[in-house]
């Protein structure tokens, strides 16, 4: 469904992604693992063309999206949930969702305001509060809900568990599994191996912007050297 091929991305002169390649099949939840600075966020942004890769290609649903503008990629069905959350703090929850709203898409679940308030009951209670009044966990839910309003077929979640209370992380894991059961494909970047194991089918480990491991968690467990070399456990 999504294929990254030999991506090289730079930030200024810093070479962040180095011939990075991996792919995601339809309906899969893939965890993108790696330490701080390994290039996880840059990978996400390179898919969205918010960082423009110098070379390499990104193919989504059979189309080369490498040269597309960001909004077109979002319109084609990739929903991006940034690590910094970037909710619109001056807008209410409902208005935040409105920004993300897109028309229904064939073959993927369609989300309404009410569906999302069912999925995230905390948000329903505060639907007319401004974004800046929300806690970190609520902001994270709002970011995901806002992206779901676009009815994406592929969801990019950048470190959703970061800086969030454990009880909310648990809730988040349930939510992701529910999204998966509805047929969504998910790429989730994580530092938390435990969390990744719960939600993901497969792990891709990157270090210095290069793919170091690609396989299921059983394989990863039988290869503790790789695990210890590239992940801070």
């Amino acid at each position, binding site marked *: 469904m999504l294929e990254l091929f030999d991506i090289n991305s730079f930030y200024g002169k810093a070479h962040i992604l180095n011939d990075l390649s991996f792919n995601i099949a339809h309906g899969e939840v893939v965890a993108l693992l790696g330490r701080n600075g390994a290039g996880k966020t840059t990978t996400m942004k390179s898919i969205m063309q918010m960082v423009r890769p110098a070379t390499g290609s990104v193919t989504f649903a059979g189309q080369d999206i490498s040269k597309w503008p*960001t909004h077109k990629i979002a319109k084609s069905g990739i929903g991006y949930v940034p690590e910094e959350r970037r909710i619109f703090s*001056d807008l209410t929850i409902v208005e935040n969702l409105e920004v993300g709203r897109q028309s229904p898409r064939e073959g993927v679940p369609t989300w309404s305001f009410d569906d999302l308030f069912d999925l995230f009951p905390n948000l329903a209670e505060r639907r007319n509060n401004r974004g800046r009044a929300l806690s970190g966990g609520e902001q994270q839910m709002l970011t995901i809900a806002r992206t779901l309003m676009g009815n994406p077929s592929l969801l990019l979640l950048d470190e959703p568990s970061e800086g969030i209370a454990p009880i909310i992380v648990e809730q988040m894991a349930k939510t992701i599994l529910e999204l998966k059961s509805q047929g969504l494909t998910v790429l989730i970047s994580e530092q938390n191996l435990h969390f990744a194991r719960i939600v993901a089918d497969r792990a891709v480990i990157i270090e210095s912007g290069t793919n170091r491991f690609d396989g299921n968690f059983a394989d990863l467990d039988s290869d503790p050297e790789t695990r210890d070399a590239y992940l801070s456990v």
Partner: protein
Amino acid sequence: MGPFIAQFLTGLANAAALFLVASGLSLIFGVTRIVNFAHGSFYMLGAFIGYTVMQLLPGAFGFWSSILVAGLAVGLIGVIVEMLVLRPIYRAPELFQLVATFGVILVIQDLALITWGAEDLLGPRAPGLKGVIRILGEPVPKYDLALIAITPFILFALWYLITKTRLGVLVRAATQDREMVAALGVNQSWLFTGVFFLGAMLAGLGGALQLPKGGADLLMDFNILASIFVVVVIGGMGSLPGAFIAAVLISVLNVFGVRYMPQSTLVLMYVVMAVVLIIKPYGLMGRKEVAGEHGQVGEPEQPFSPFGRRGRLIVAVLLIALATLPFLGSKFAMILAIDIIIVCLFAASLHFILSLGGLVSFGHAAFFGGGAYAAALMVHYAGSPMELAFVLAPIITGFLAIIIGWFCIRLTGVYFAMLTLAFSQLLWSLVFQWGEVTGGDDGMVSIWPSPWASDTTVFFYLTMIIGFGGILVLRHAAHSPFGYALRASRDSAGRAEATGINTKRVQFVAFTFAGAMAGLAGTLFVFSKGSIFPTELEIGKSFDALIMVFLGGVKTLAGPLVGASALSLMQDYLTRFEYWRLALGLLIIAVVIIAPEGIAGTSQKLAARWGIIRRDEVQ
């Protein structure tokens, strides 16, 4: 009581048009982050187009539909400007777009001149609203009362659009973080075009609406520009209610000012703005600007590096070539070269605080003119010799910069720009209205150099030494530890503070230093011309310097010199033609689109790509 209320009503009526125009500017800035200098031109076009359509459509219905037609027409012109001129340069460095909008001002000025002629047009009276109504015995024009009645509807319509519609939600979201809005599937290009349509339309409506009060003339664009910036800043960037309150405040104060303190009119609104910004740094209803929250943190800044051997050689050759200019025997060429060297120093001093310090000053003319006036006053009243003036005038300008900087440095971004503008306007009106000392509009004349330097050739070499000496000092400061600290404060104030740099103090010192160097340029200027007039302190002078810096390339040290030379030469060549503004405006727009990093920035990039210079020599 009667006169008081009548004055107040006049002020309220004046606020209607001002609010319309200012809210358009605020919307455009909020979403696109473009400081649209051409907004006054949209307002002027609204008046001219409204006037023409009113000639065609008779009666009350014709009058009011003409205003709507003018608004729509100007909205479409705004769309054309956005699509043709601004769209190609959205990815350019922040604020670069203001150069393009400056080009648009020039183009529209000449197009209006060609279309409507140079005569001021008297606005038609509104049918059915001619004459006055007496309130407590005082006459109040009926049209003023109509405007006061309309204003709440305008405010409501805008409020509804911004808070209740999808477009409004997107506009507010984009005001905060436009990259995230794009990542959610909204096409920014169309959003920007839509906002430009709306903003330009509001300006056009404002221009047409004030026709019965003020008519239409070719100076309207610059005349309203300062006021609407003041309104937007007092109200708080991006806040419509704030803009409304500020428009009322400024208009009412202005009316009272004209009546009770006529000598204060030029300066009153700047005093109000300065007071508001000193008390509430982000305007009455604005909120703090957080760097990077708008999702427009561009490419990281390339560090400057000193020229390599080849670069120095080229500079030396150029300087030697310039030094042979007197041997060509053209006095005219020497005078032109003197002018250019002076503006180069002026532009370089602005570049120092703007590019290295990250503080965009809209009022740098205060220091150029300040230095020139300091020297002129010394010569005129104390009989000071030129040599002493060259030492003391920059120092005096430095003190002036200390005073202004003390108020301004606490602000950042557009608010800093506007407060520096306010102070330079204060200084301008002081010089303009304190005629006994400064000569007012007549300026100060007979400020000649010492006899040994009065020959053009000698003065040319003197200008070369002082001018390039000043530029070298600026360059040296840029590459000194102080320059590093200044750039660190710009790039990340928090991290710079954490390493022990007092960022505000560093910026304060840099501001003072840049002011003193501009003062040195001003001193050179006054002795080269033998006279000084308040025009050297005007907004236009500050804008010239900004255009030079951006046109040359804000991210290179050579930029201000290239930009200053290019703009001076273009002006010198083109002003001999009748429609030189049109030509200059189109030329500026063309340069901006072809070289979005400025002339020097783009040529260095190309040179590096073609292998003429090494990539790390790009500076």
